[in-house]
């Protein structure tokens, strides 16, 4: 998905947030629910959403990023609009149930686990136990939960989604799926900061003797697709007191990195 412009929370979401303020002992403890709130609000949790959540809960945005990457159920920009989560833990995988479901998804959408369609509409991934082990395979599609989801039921469901989106199975089978990249954008190791002064010892320049750009990532492509803009932003302290200005909430002047987001 393309990088979205500055985002603001809707008034309903803010009202929900203020309801929680009375409910929870401190603001930090609202983080799990606030992340759900921004996920619902924006469809996924991207960098802007993380900054909004950090502002709301008065925590550092690095911590929010740690939360979002720790908990795998949060929807990220790399995930498709329709996100298929297929349980791959033992109870579902027994007797090939998981593989059958995955094979059906692949036959319909051309997706292997970990891939998304190029238009970002569908994605497929394997997840761990979804706690309905007596009726394998269990599939969760965004907020919908399905048991014994294989065979005609799964095919019919995917067809229904395809029809609703005005797409056909053949379109996706002909296209090359993209690998979902849920990684966090980082500054390349040979990055030089603007305005660095030559104090102390030698500068570390881009003549990195050990690492060529892109080395170290699994697929051989550069880990970070672009060099972020000059980083001169002072560290912004998290907004205390919950007074969130909707006009610039979570979207500091520092812009965002040129990291890859699907």
């Amino acid at each position, binding site marked *: 998905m393309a990088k979205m412009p500055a985002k603001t929370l809707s008034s309903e979401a803010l009202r929900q947030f203020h309801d929680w303020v009375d409910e929870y002992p401190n603001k930090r403890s609202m983080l799990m629910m606030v992340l759900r709130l921004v996920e619902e609000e924006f469809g996924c949790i991207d960098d802007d959403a993380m900054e909004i959540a950090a502002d709301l809960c008065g925590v550092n945005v690095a911590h929010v990023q740690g939360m979002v990457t720790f908990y795998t159920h949060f929807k990220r920009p790399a995930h498709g609009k329709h996100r298929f989560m297929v349980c791959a833990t033992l109870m579902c995988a027994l007797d*090939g149930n998981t593989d059958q479901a995955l094979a059906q998804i692949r036959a319909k959408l051309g997706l292997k686990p*970990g891939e998304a369609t190029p238009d970002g509409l569908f994605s497929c991934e394997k997840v*761990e136990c979804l706690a309905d082990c007596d009726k394998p395979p269990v599939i969760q599609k965004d907020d919908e939960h399905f048991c014994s989801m294989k065979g005609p039921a799964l095919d019919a469901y995917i067809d229904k989604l395809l029809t609703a989106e005005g797409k056909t199975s053949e379109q996706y089978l002909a296209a090359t799926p993209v690998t979902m990249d849920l990684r966090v954008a980082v500054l390349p190791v040979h990055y030089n900061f603007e305005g660095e002064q030559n104090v102390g010892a030698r500068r570390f320049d881009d003549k990195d003797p050990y690492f060529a750009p892109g080395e170290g990532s699994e697929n051989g492509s550069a880990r970070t697709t672009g060099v972020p803009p000059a980083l001169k932003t002072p560290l912004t302290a998290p907004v205390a007191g919950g007074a969130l200005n909707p006009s610039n909430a979570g979207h500091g002047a520092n812009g965002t990195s040129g990291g890859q987001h699907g």
Partner: protein
Amino acid sequence: MAETTPPAAPPAPPASEAPKPKPVVPFSPVILKHIHEPNAHTLEHYLARGGYETARKHVGETDPASLVAIVKDSGLRGRGGAGFPTGMKWGFLAKGTGKPAYLAVNGDESEPGTFKDRHILEKDPHQLLEGVILTCWAIQSNHAFIYLRGEFILGYQRLEAAVKEARAKGFIGEKSFGKDFPLKVTVVRGAGAYICGEETGMLSSIEGGRGYPKIKPPFPAVSGLFKCPTIVNNVETIANVTHIVKNGADWHKQWGTEKSPGYKIFCLAGAVKKPGVYEVPLGITMREFIDVYGGGMVEGRTLKAVIPGGLSAPLLTPEMVDKCTLDYESLAGLGSMLGSGGITVLHDGVDMMSAIYNTMRFYHHESCGQCTPCREGTGWLEKLAHKHHAGHAHAGDTDLLADVAKNMRGRTICVLADAAAMPMQSYLQLFRPEFDKRVAAPEYVEKGRTARDEITPAAKRESVTHGAPGVLDVGMGMDRV
């Protein structure tokens, strides 16, 4: 999304229709009694069957200590997995600290093979809520958190609705049941982390952190949520409280064994004719459970092994199954554990190497990464299990597996490392010949089944079934990252 569940699933066999076991006292389901009735999740339905009467009777009236005593007398043991006596745990709650006490209800239900809490949350949330109210009164807590795993979407919606209804009715709020007992109930959603089923990991998550378990001691009863005294109980445990308070400790003790009194919900999955959730008295035999409740093995299959208490429980062979009764002591005596009550039956066609590789992949994926032995060990176990699964193992790799598993045990903050090592040790102990067969077995190499991409970059990614319909190579959950 009630309407969308489950489109092709056969309806779970009603537990009440299951043939009666043969304990002295006839047993019919208590907690799951109403889950098959339509609209059982609504307040009207719950009130119509005498709901909230027990709470109304006791909150603000009965001495809280006497409620703790009833639960202690009943011998109720924690249903989340550890089986710690609930009343005793309540008794450990630090008093006079000047800090508020919290109740944290664990609805993360992340142990694979367990799906009992899902049914309570989705089909009878008010039952849980009444238990929460009674427990809060018993431990004199004014704030309860109910933590649900993020994937329980219907459960969250229904529980949240139930809390709203109860609040509107005045069952919880500033004056619960009109008594001077303020009570807040907060529902928190997780987001896909097995480790948040660990009690302190769950507390970290509620506090707005990564689900990192905390160092014990201090135990949550002394310093838990927000560094305040906290009681952590499983959903099923809390749901039991209402019935025990209502009917008395002796009523609860009429079922079960001496050390494992009462009844418990067991989840049956795998190669049986009627998988599902069944509430049975503790102490019935495993054979009876599988053959009578589960309807026996699926046609044409024989029993190879049983995972008795969720994925982390050591396996039982058919001989052990014969000796096994469903109570904490019997399973502990067999070197396994009752755990969360998730029983999975593996049939003779299951490739154990596939099963252990899948299991290890699960723990590798779910280790929080805090402690060194677990963070590194789970990955190592998975890689070694994969080698065995793919037939790449070298001589000595099997012994290495055993040693790595041994080194992981008892050296971490929480028990996830043990939970990963225990099944590995059990598979090694019970199915060592299958491991040995895969050591550099030429036929596996010839099939082109090289390691997965992460291990051998040029590998083929096709899934290949081993022999009879066993466990397929389901690859690595990590390829989401």
